[in-house]
């Protein structure tokens, strides 16, 4: 079946259109829906198989990146989203979406001491846009099936993955949930154990800082003009990020 993707947008979301396009290119149908519609009626999620929280600056990233929207999710949409996940559906958070998933406890539930991990300010203290090599570890995550490595851009100020302590991160590592990592010498933000993406215990909820939707066409690659195939019309030249969306769509095939 052709899955239906809910692209959630909120004030300040800004990667919704290209993310919807990537899903459509992968064979899904998409609908961009404002958070207010979900707050009015959370049953809206029923007609969808995939929930995607795209990149951007929800509510300006005021207080902290993703914090305000995460707070709304915690208070008003937690049940609906857990129901969505428990129905065997998929949830993807990209960049700001990852920040929202982790700060709302969807990716990693709070324990007695509070949140287990966060995405903090980059080591540089600055917003950075650059391309990074990524390695996939394990096979837990549905979105990363059959992918070994990817080359994608990051574009964020608050993407440094930090666990509350080593024990929390050890546990996540042990459960095979630290599924996407920066190549060690390219870690762009100081993330603990080079973590670029994290999935939940089901492998069906996935958040990542890099932007797969920004590498679905070969001309998005920063060095595509160095490739001699540029002057051909070779169709097998989609960008690395396309596989993430295809995996999500094929999960429902």
């Amino acid at each position, binding site marked *: 079946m052709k899955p239906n993707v809910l692209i959630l947008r909120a004030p300040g979301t800004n990667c919704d259109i290209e993310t919807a396009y990537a899903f459509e290119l992968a064979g899904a149908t998409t609908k961009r829906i404002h958070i207010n519609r979900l707050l009015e009626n959370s049953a809206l999620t029923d007609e969808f198989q995939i929930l995607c929280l795209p990149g951007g600056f929800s509510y300006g990233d005021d207080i902290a990146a993703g914090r305000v929207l995460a707070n709304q999710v915690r208070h008003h949409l937690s049940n609906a989203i857990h129901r969505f996940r428990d129905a065997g559906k998929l949830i993807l958070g990209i960049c700001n979406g990852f920040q929202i998933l982790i700060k709302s406890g969807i990716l990693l539930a709070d324990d007695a001491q509070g949140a287990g991990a966060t995405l903090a300010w980059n080591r*540089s203290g600055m917003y950075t846009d650059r391309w990074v090599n990524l390695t996939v570890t394990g096979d837990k995550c549905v979105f990363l099936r059959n992918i070994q490595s990817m080359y994608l851009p990051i574009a964020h100020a608050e993407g440094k993955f930090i666990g509350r302590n080593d024990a929390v991160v050890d546990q996540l590592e042990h459960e095979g949930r630290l599924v996407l990592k920066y190549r060690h010498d390219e870690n762009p933000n100081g993330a603990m154990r080079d973590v670029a993406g994290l999935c939940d215990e089901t492998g069906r909820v996935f958040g990542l800082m890099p932007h797969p939707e920004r590498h679905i066409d070969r001309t998005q690659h920063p060095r595509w003009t160095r490739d001699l195939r540029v002057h051909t019309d070779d169709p097998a030249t989609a960008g690395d990020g396309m596989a993430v969306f295809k995996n999500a769509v094929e999960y429902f095939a």
Partner: protein
Amino acid sequence: MLWEVDIFAAPDQPDVIGKDTAADAKDLGLSEDLQLEFARGYLIEGNLTQEQIETATTRLLADMVVERPVIMQVQMGADTSCSRSGKVVYVLPKPGVTDTVADNAKKAMRDFQIEADAVRTFKKYWIQGATDDETKRLAQKLLANDAVEQTVFGALPFDHLQFGTPYKFSLVLVGIRAMSDGELEALSKKGQLFLSLTEMRTIKDYFVKLDRDPTDIELETIAQTWSEHCSHKTLAGRISYSGPEGNLTFNNMLKETIFAATVQVRKNLGPLDFCVSVFSDNAGVVTFDKEYNVCFKVETHNHPSALEPYGGANTGIGGVIRDPMGTGMGAKPICNTDVFCFAPPEFESSDLFAGVLHPKRVIKGVVAGVRDYGNRMGIPTVNGAVYFDRRYLGNPLVYCGNVGLIPVDQSFKHPQSGDYIVAMGGRTGRDGIHGATFSSAELTSESETLSGGAVQIGNAITEKMMLDVLLEARDRGLYNAVTDCGAGGFSSAVGEMGEKIGAEVNLDAIPVKYEGLSYTECWISEAQERMVFSVPKDKWPELKALAESEDVETVILGEFKPTGRLLLLYEGNTVADLDMEFMHNGRPPVVRQAVYQTEAVTQLVPVDAAALPGLTVTAATNEPGDVLLAIVSSLNVASKHWVIRQYDHEVQGGSVIKPLVGVQCDGPGDAAVLRPRVSSRRGLVISCGMNPHYGDYDTGCMTASAIDEAVRNAVAVGANPATLAILDNFCWGNTDKPEVLGSLVHSALVCRELAVGFGIPFVSGKDSLNNEFRPKEEGFRDHPISIPPSLLISAMGQVDDVKNCVTMDLKEAGNLLYQIGETKNELGGSHYSLVNCLRGGQTPTVDIDTARRTFYAVHQAINESLVRSVHDMSEGGLAVCAAEMAFAGGLGAKLWLEHLPVASANEKNNLPLAIPDVDDELAQDVVRLFSESNSRFLVEVPIDCSRQFEKIFAEANVPLYQVGKVAEAPELVATSNDERTVLRLPTATIKAAWLKAFDFGGEYK
């Protein structure tokens, strides 16, 4: 009850802001050995318990994984040190200044059933190792900006946050009819109207005729409509000019130069004319494909950025984004550009004039301001440039541009009589009052206190939310016209939209940020993120419902009525009743004198470094290798990666050629290419050209060079010269001075000549005049520092299929290198002259016919896939061009200089070639390597394509020289006659110098 929450980095986390601030303090020479601790914080007012504040803090305001909060109740005189040592400094936004974090925190707390009455954020510093005086200086120079922030030393001197008292209506009349000339002038100055005596007299006469005195709001409305910023009265005025072209008289200088060029180009293009709407709407519109047009606007925000760099640049980009949004029926913004002119960052603090911010602080603030707005809006910032000159010290230049995509059938607006006048977006506050009139004034050290109100802080998310609603409303056909509230606020927006109809506005309907605004303040405030719509009455309910569904505020302000008058009401009282005709056409023409005389061209002569305000690096020796290293470390040429990487240049998913290219993604691309429609292969090219240094010699050469550079940058990546459009931005000094205005008129005349000659239309433009700073210090008071004439040319081009685009990084060893275009003896104003402290010489000229043929030939070679890399030659000439191509490609290059003839500059100035302290033989090679002659490219061609490639240039009669080849070994080698090595440097050495010269750190630290 007022609570204070201080939030610190957890003990195992770095205090990045504390450390950076201490480092900046050292940098600025404020304090050598400073211990500084930082906390961000919130003041929360309301009838709230400690427990409630704890909940809000630990679950919302602080990130408990990496932060630790301290909560306390604010009581007069209580200790707020949180058991930390050092002097405590609070920095808070001034009451009324945008504080979106506080607004969002207040809203989000409601989800915890916590109802705060008011919230405010602050920054708090604990400073050790500084005296009281040093602490004060530190606060003033680094921690806070008086224009928008208040500083508190020690404990907070208040225990509540509420402010603003209700406004009680009282009509203010200005007794202008009885005023003498002296009183009129005083009124203009004191009231910040910035109108001339002639203009004040015209207003007086108008009201004498009406037999009444004007209200304050009528006077303000006229002053705004007539301001330089809104009416461009100087350049669109009468000018009597005497220059190299002879004596000329203009009735409307802009119309007769720039606009006239566009009219001529369009006529010459005939059926190939691709202009849609030029010089009439908020941005210039041209055809893109069958379904969409594109529009482009570049604005400046210089004066606000001088006072408050972050807020000034922030609202500069925010403002220019609203130009495409307010063009036609509203365009979708698809990319931003930014060009800055600063004083060099290494500046002795003790050399600063009072009222001038340190250049480093200006640079960091401006870059952060553009970054935070552009990134939050989700608009990629794809192209820009940064120039340095000491004369930008008190008067930095901030050019911000935005391109929009607009459906072909939505490209024009038609406000209708009987429509509601509707406001949408942010609320109105006291921010930005007198921005339009202020931007027409010269800056002084008192500007900050006089015009602090003109500075604003933007809120990108408010604008993004409005954009989301605007595009949906446009596609549903809910309005007949839209425009942005820029300078002049509602006054300008409603005035312009209703110019041909008439408008009636209820000022009390304007939503305000806080109580206490007078009717005049509501009307002229330049608060950001507001737009005005002309909405048919039957569409209003749907528009209102749509806006409300996304939490965007929208209200009816009034109605367009066929009266030809502007009628303003407050609580039913008439406060203004003006004739639209008088407002828009009643201004007396400005008549000015202009003279221009170019210096006679001389040989290069050594001068003192102090005579070259653009100098940032001097060469160790005048050996070509040392010169090359000095040029690549000059701030103008050095890598701008520190700026570029802070911008999102890939959001919206259409990035094709990024600002940084090559094997390590750090080579300087010539222009950006993007696909505005991700489902299409058609590309848009954005580039720019500027060189303020040439203007010191001849603003004509500067102008021709800027246009040539913008065009060749665009052509270099693949843009078709037949669909290029350009924009002008004139930033000049005090045009009341005939010689300053003359240098601008000369520039405008050259704009006309090149646009017509190239067949490339100007589609939009803007000017910013009176960019000079008047220090109050003894001895300087009568010597204002004027910026150099600074013309920015922005270009927008198109490519049919992005697969044909090329980048500047060398691709493969063994390929041939060709120089396209002739090298002339043009070292005047060059970086060679700069780093060797030379003055004189011929500044680069443009041979229009050859240049035009060159652009088309290069485009043909690119389209036929005959080239692997192309780079334009600009500052630093062939040497810098080849070096950049080599290190960006991780390869080397060998140059055979003897293959390049050196032409004399031009027939008029046939100076023999001579360079101080350089022998005649080397002088030839110096010119070949470092001359900045225009219309040249360096191109990499595979050997098997060379015959076909050469044929194109032979047929086009464009000079072409096989000047070298790509080498595997990563070094740049230039040899001349008899295999003599003129230059040999490892590319790694050149690259390292180029990368580190303009880098304030932050990456991998």
